[in-house]
């Protein structure tokens, strides 16, 4: 451990570099404030940078995220720490939020790396690629994904065998195993929490068979299969590589379900499932796509029309709650469900099942502040203390919340929420400016 702690000063600290954190940072920076943006992953962009296209406009997600991320990365008022953790934030005065930050070593000097991928080819270790949602493998010396920012190699030290193969082939000698964690003490005048959400873990519902049945995947995995930077060149089911032709979507997987401790609606899964169904109909014109739902929640601008469009394209919508999913020997799946419009229990066979997993809170947000200072709601999202009058306000004056850190929401709502948080943060700084 590098003992020396560097003391740094910024106007604002933004925790989380997803679309909400990025937007908040840009708004602050464009108004002339200096921002430190801290992201725990190896790239900016959060979940959005990994998506295929986005509802209801079907814009290519990479095409709208990468330039935004690039703007953030180049902004003269924004400094970015990736692979970094904010361990505590302490409010010393109205003007002084003190954060302890640990920047983990990447074992690659980003400035010198040309992303030539020679290290990747040389590395003998293969592990599951988390950015491709475990659908394929990656090396221990690797570039996280093709549109990652920063686009540079990283060494996954947990899986690295220290064989040194990468170091030998690197033409710019930017791999450095002697790198140490760095400690920073940051003083900022305001804080925006944009720590985002976690996906519901489908292993919590064993009757859906995720993790046991090979052809039951999550919506995030499907998102990767249909993204421009997809792992395979086509859509296929992981069990045997067959191109599926009868795909089922199970909505509300882990949402609206008190039995898994998540009684609320995730607000995005109806829409992203309808989006994926439309994209699948385009990519696999012969395939049948069926969506099993409780209610379809297409409530935003253009959403209802998007839902009707999916119906028009031939996506089947079945109102019914899935009881169990069983696997057949050939890898196909039998879904048992109650068909509500007929009032009978039925079975249907599909060759691939996508679980539309819901949005869970990210508990990180609460842990960063001294015991209980940042209030959470019953679902462990950051509590909004004035939901109607000032939705970005939290229980700590000067700390604001942006995006899905406070509740499930889609990208347009995350961006508006980030606009709101940055507006409050700017007002807060102005009001507490030392004379």
């Amino acid at each position, binding site marked *: 451990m590098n003992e020396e702690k560097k003391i740094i000063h910024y106007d604002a600290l933004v925790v989380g570099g997803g679309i909400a954190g990025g937007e908040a940072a840009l708004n602050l920076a464009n108004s002339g404030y200096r921002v430190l943006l801290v992201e725990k992953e190896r790239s900016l962009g959060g979940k959005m940078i990994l998506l295929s296209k986005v509802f209801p406009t079907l814009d290519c997600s990479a095409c709208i995220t990468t330039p935004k991320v690039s703007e953030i990365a180049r902004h003269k008022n924004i400094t970015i720490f990736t692979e970094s953790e904010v361990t505590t934030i302490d409010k010393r005065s109205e003007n002084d939020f003190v954060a302890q930050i640990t920047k983990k070593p990447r074992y690659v000097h980003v400035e010198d790396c040309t992303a030539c991928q020679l290290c990747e080819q040389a590395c003998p270790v293969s592990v599951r690629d988390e950015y491709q949602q475990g659908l394929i493998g990656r090396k221990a010396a690797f570039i996280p994904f093709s549109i990652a920012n920063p686009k540079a190699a990283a060494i996954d030290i947990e899986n690295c065998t220290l064989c040194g193969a990468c170091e030998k082939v690197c033409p710019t000698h930017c791999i450095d195993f002697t790198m140490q964690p760095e400690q920073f003490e940051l003083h900022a005048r305001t804080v925006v929490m944009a720590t985002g959400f976690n996906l519901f873990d489908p292993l919590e519902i064993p009757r859906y068979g995720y993790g046991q049945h090979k052809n039951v995947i999550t919506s995030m995995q499907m998102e990767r299969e249909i993204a*421009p930077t997809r792992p395979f060149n086509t859509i296929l089911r992981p069990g045997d590589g067959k191109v599926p032709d009868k795909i089922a979507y199970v909505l509300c997987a882990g949402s*609206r379900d008190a039995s898994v401790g998540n009684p609320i609606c995730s607000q995005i899964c109806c829409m992203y499932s309808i989006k994926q169904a439309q994209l699948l109909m385009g990519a696999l014109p012969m395939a049948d796509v069926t969506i099993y739902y409780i209610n379809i929640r297409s409530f935003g*601008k*253009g959403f209802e029309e998007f839902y009707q469009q999916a119906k028009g394209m031939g996506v089947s919508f079945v109102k019914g709650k899935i009881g169990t999913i069983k696997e057949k020997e050939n890898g196909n799946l039998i879904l048992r469900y109650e068909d509500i419009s007929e009032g009978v229990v039925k079975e249907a066979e599909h060759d691939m099942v996508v679980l539309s997993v819901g949005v869970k809170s990210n508990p990180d947000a609460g842990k960063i502040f001294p015991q209980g200072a940042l209030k959470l709601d019953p679902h462990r999202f950051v509590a909004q203390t004035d939901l109607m009058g000032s939705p970005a306000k939290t229980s700590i004056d000067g700390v604001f919340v942006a995006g899905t850190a406070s509740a499930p929401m889609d990208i347009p709502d995350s961006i*508006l929420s980030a*606009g709101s948080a940055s507006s409050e943060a*700017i007002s807060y700084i102005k009001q507490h400016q030392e004379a």
Partner: protein
Amino acid sequence: MKERIGVYICHCGGNISDYVDVEKVRQAVEHETGVAMARTTVFACSDANQNDMVEDIRTHNLDGVIVASCSPKLHLTTFRNVTERGELNKYTYVHTNIREQASWAHSDDKEGATDKAIRLVKAAIAKSRYAEPLHPNLFEAEKTIAVIGAGIAGMKAAASLADKQTEVLLIEKEHRVGGHTATWGPLAMSEESGSALTERIYNDLLRRENVTIMNGTEVISSKGSIGNFTLKVRKRPLKEGDPVETAEFTVGSVVVATGFDSYQPKEGEFGFAQSDNVITLPDFRHLIDHAEGKELIYNGKKIRNIAYIYCVGSRQTNGENSYCSRFCCTSAIHASILAKKRFGKINNYHLNRGIRTYGKQELLYAESLALGDLYLQWAEETPPAVVTEGKKTTITLRDILSANRDLELEADLVVLVTGMVPRADNKVGTLFKLPKGRDRFFNEVHMKLRPVETVIDGVTIAGSCQGPKNISESVNSALSAATKSYSLISKGTLETEPIVAEVNSDLCSWCGKCAEACPFDAILQQEVGGKMVAVVNNSVCKGCGMCAPVCPPDAINLINYSSEEIMSMIDALA
């Protein structure tokens, strides 16, 4: 003439390269006259490629840059900025769209798509060779900001701007502020009433010296553009005989927060206006907010059984309002719970089309179910029929939730859960020429990248005038719009595009045809050298080119689209 052009052909992930053979395009253009290098790239807009481009400009000594990728609407500015970082004049950058125009338009014909892409890139090269450096127009911006509409969104936008030490004019056409919210009692998801919330925010505004609240005031005209809008306002007389006062103000930016209208059912729509027992959701809210005593009384009658018919005026697949109004499921359930808790002995029947209590609002739905409310669901093709005979109102419907059984129920009161529609009074929209979406609400530039901006520079939209929203969503949008308006003009100096129309006053003899054709009122009649001619206001002109072809003596040219450029492009396309 450019001699060292760099050409980048983008895969756009697969959006382009799935149908266009990008390598073939590259080979087809790399030896064109003037081309110094041609490259393909997976994502031209990625940070890594942008850096490569800047590097290429330096190392290959490029004098022109072309990217063949997506629509210029998305990335023209991105690549102009890259060009500028490479120290070239950014207006010499040429963009060509081979995604929408080649790949997506011809996904059934890969060879044809590739061939078209090649021609488009060749045309871009022809244009690039003649591209001249241009310089943006700079001018001083007025720092006051006007907010139109003092509902919850407008008031919050004004407060947020005031916090940023900006002078704000808050203009409200009614004589009281607060919009719809001011009239509500208890709000869903909150402990506060709508009236208390608006009062709290209004009082907060009154404390600020830099906000001028003008109620009973309408904007009657607007001239100018970003940085310098001249608004003429008229104070509506409080009572007849009061003088009508007008005034003029100059502002740098405008936040439009004019809100929505509640859908007004037509006569006979679910029995509306045919029976006193049928009322709208806002009427019902007023009824329970103002009711006294332990019983709910309406028209002298005790109310026990209430039927709520959802989606009235919304989700009309083939009708005028195809959208979902977003707030009304939650609002109706919340009102029904209020009624049940306050008056006891109430039976609620929710005749819905699929309940949309998204997010945490789901808990209200769960609470209502726990209270024993009954939910019945109908399909658009078989709407419930409401019949009143004497004092009795009967509803028949086919219920999806009980295997399509036909049910009949009697209700003392039928509440039509009416949605949001755009304001019938569109004066403000017309004044600023704000475009509308399919839903007839004001349209944003880009739902994800620029959700509060409009195509009219300097005019932002806040709250439900952009589309249905609840209070907290409206406030988020208002604060975003305020921040955007603020950051647009806070620097004081503004840049506008140099790509504007140019009138050759020697040829012009003022016939006025161009002024008629201009959608932005950018052309004025002025005396120049002793005769009347057309003059273009550079800060208003958008360079759309509508004026050029209608000019009889051909006196109008569009900068950046010179005849040389256009003719050589046409030659390359042929």
